[in-house]
């Protein structure tokens, strides 16, 4: 996984706002490294037997959220984005959570079918 570090832009001849971009590039590479570490962590946690499914899910989603935050915040420049974009994304987040949450909340009351003998595989 080392092919990208060969393209270090630090050797680039100076332009005006180059320092700005060069600093950003360094940040991108650091984030890239962090993402790879996160991926390794994600797979590693797979081999740990957590006490409950809920905890497993929580850990997996926590690591995924950190990775997502890094991609969104730095690669997508969300950390320095305008309020309008935040507003649109927050709206989507609220509605997505409503869809998932309310659907799950409503499904808990249904009786479970416990007959597995009629399982059919074509």
């Amino acid at each position, binding site marked *: 996984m080392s092919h990208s570090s060969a393209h270090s832009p630090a050797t680039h001849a100076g332009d005006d706002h180059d320092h700005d971009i060069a600093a950003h590039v360094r940040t991108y590479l650091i984030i890239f490294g962090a993402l790879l570490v996160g991926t390794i962590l994600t797979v590693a946690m797979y081999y740990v037997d957590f006490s409950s499914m809920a905890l497993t899910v929580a850990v997996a989603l926590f690591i995924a959220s950190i990775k997502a935050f890094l991609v969104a915040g730095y690669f997508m420049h969300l950390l320095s984005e305008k309020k309008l974009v935040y507003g649109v994304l927050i*709206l989507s987040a609220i*509605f997505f959570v409503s869809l998932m949450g*309310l*659907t799950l*909340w*409503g499904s*808990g009351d249904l009786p479970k*079918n416990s007959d597995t003998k*009629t399982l059919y*595989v074509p």
Partner: protein
Amino acid sequence: MQSTASHAHTSATDSSHGHAHHEPGFFGKYIFSTDHKVIGIQYGVSALLFLLFGFFLILAMRYQLAKPGSPIPVVGPLLEMIDKDMAKGGIMGGDLYNSFGAMHGTIMVFLAIVPVLFGAFGNYVTPLQIGAPDMAFPRLNMASFHCYFLGGVVMFASFFTPGGAARSGWTSYSPLASVTDLVNRFDGQTYWLIGMVLLITSSLLGSVNFIATIIQLRCRGMSWMRMPFFVWAQFVTGFLLLLAFPPLEAAGLMQLMDNLFGSSFFLPQGLVVDGKQLGVSGGGSPLLWQHLFWFLGHPEVYVLILPAIGIVSEVISNNIRKPLWGYRSMVYAAMSIGFLSFIVWAHHMYLTGMGTKVATFFQTTTMMISIPSVIILTALFISLWGGSIRFNSASLFALSFLPMFGIGGLTGLPLGFNASDVFLHDSYYVIGHFHYVVAPGTMFAVFAGIYFWFPKITGRHMNEWLGKLHWAGSLFFMNCVFAPMFIQGFKGMSRRMSDGGTTYFGGDVAMGGDPGVLKLNNMILWSAVGLGISQIPFIINFFSSIFSGKRVSSDNPWQATTLDWATPTPPPHGNFIGEPVAYRGPYEYSVPGAKSDFTPQSEKA
């Protein structure tokens, strides 16, 4: 505004744009145009044609309901020719009834009303009212129209596929939608799903365009609170389409997989169809489809009504020569409706066995959403007080919208309450309720908009006598068609029964059936015919006025304040001569001390 756009365009065909501007040929001008006005007209014409088609579907169904088992005059033999099995002897069979019913709903909602309100009026008027030269993404706009048109073609073609069009309701509930035809997997339902994917794509592209345009292309001085309410309505509608449609697209893909690849997203274990166990793995959830469908389905109804309210607001404010009362409240109410509409959907699912806590949540949010709706309606009613009301075809339709929407909205309350909905769910009461909102509701807004903006688009007025005839007939017959349905619903008559409830509802008096109520089906049929006849003056008026209507005396024949009337007639490519600037609010009618009873938004302070 940026420097490159500040040089004044002295003529519409100014070619000093910095890029070559060839005069487009026929295809470029009328079929593949990127001009929002042409696209708006394309949407409008297609949508109105689909509207007419959807109306014929329901007329045929109404005949079957009033006279179950008798051959349909004129249309019957035609149907028999198309599909002998479904229309033997010109009589509408049960399958054909279901298929017409499903397609009537689908066509009216997705191919007619939303395209005419959002695609046609939205596209044509929005850039004009905010002072923009076009939509933010003109080519995307063209793509969204063609996606819609393709989706319409697929939906129309589905009628001619073996087995006919989709027949599991416009709601396409699984498992029925996946088991209607177990032999031919590429049946009407599959066409419906493919058509829906295309229509959803069109809506998504359109909504991105609308929202970006309203945010980015407002002209100088056009602050948020100076925008006409019409634009606010389109803005909120855009968000509804953007965020509510994707779950239905996901569900549509899942149902497509169920139908074509034998998966079991929505098919539970142990399903028995035609006496045989269905050969699928099971493990799916029919409720999942319902949740995903109604997650769109509810915001969809606000997509239907918000642009309609927008049109009505414009027509009313112009014809009462008075500002809208409570503009700010209306704006906040529209935003609240938009937000709340995403969390009320399961009030369509009260009878699915949800627990009481969840049902109470949805009941609460449903009651909450009625508040901003009432605020908007009340604001419009209060606006009339002290107004100098002009009665013309456009304003008659806009004024009639108010009580019709009021009836539609109020009759929705018993449906929003869990307890009363247990009785009313899937009865004719529901059909009466939602038709009052969309038929005399949105349709009256559409007609008002057509009469209102026709002079700007064509440079000619529509004939007033024909317009008033159209209005009187429509108002009378709309009520005659839909009011009896409330009675039928209260009496317990079920919807979607192809024999009109003769066997199920009307047959057993001891069980509460009421054959007398079934007789109302006759009244509904003849009122529907009357409604259809009332549209003839409109159709004649529409076409003849294009060629020989009275020419407008000015660019602003209605003496309106908004920027859409500050353009040449019809607006050229680029819309405005010179840079449009908004110096004041959108409804400066009868301003004390002003020299006339209206002050255009573009007039300097």
